[in-house]
């Protein structure tokens, strides 16, 4: 079965501290994974996708097929990183996504 698990509902970190959001997936094929972000009062938007291997707003995410994980990391959290983050898995050729439950990140000064 296809599944995306985000074990942390809430992550509270201090400004300047590292932050890591966990994402584990279950998928029988070759996975394609994404992180979406929703800032307060804004629309949900794509943050990054694993195949692009980019660093967006200081965030990186590495696909680990052995551990079936796609954790999102940032070495130094900023207050503007406070948001809801969703991990998502591409589930078919039409572009449908399976989303995780989401992790709320709160960065305090």
């Amino acid at each position, binding site marked *: 079965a296809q599944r995306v698990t985000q074990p942390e509902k809430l992550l509270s970190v201090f400004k300047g501290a590292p932050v890591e959001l966990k994402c584990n997936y279950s998928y029988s094929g070759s996975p394609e994974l994404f992180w979406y972000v929703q800032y307060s009062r804004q629309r949900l*938007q794509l943050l990054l996708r694993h195949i692009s291997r980019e660093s967006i707003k200081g965030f990186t995410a590495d696909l680990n097929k052995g551990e079936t994980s796609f954790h999102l990391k940032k070495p130094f959290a900023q207050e503007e990183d406070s948001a809801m983050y969703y991990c998502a898995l591409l589930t078919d050729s*039409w572009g449908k996504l399976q989303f995780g439950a989401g992790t709320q990140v709160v960065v305090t000064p």
Partner: protein
Amino acid sequence: DVKVTQSSRYLVKRTGEKVFLECVQDMDHENMFWYRQDPGLGLRLIYFSYDVKMKEKGDIPEGYSVSREKKERFSLILESASTNQTSMYLCASSGGRGGYNEQFFGPGTRLTVL
């Protein structure tokens, strides 16, 4: 700039009412999606459409139907609203056929069913 708009930001309806949620995109996208967003459950796909008049059930289609008469518009219909359909509803669109194309989301409609 991709624009996905939803007809209402907030909606309050009574149990048993028929409810229409409208979504319009202006980028000539082939694919459109309806999700509901609930705390602790994330986004769950209700229906999606890959072409005009085409629709496919998502993970939680029960109690919902959809209509796509024009490419730019995708409507979600609650035939008889119930309190367990109180939720945030998000519409999204993406272009292209096959594989992943970035989904662009609307601002959401917060529906309360009393």
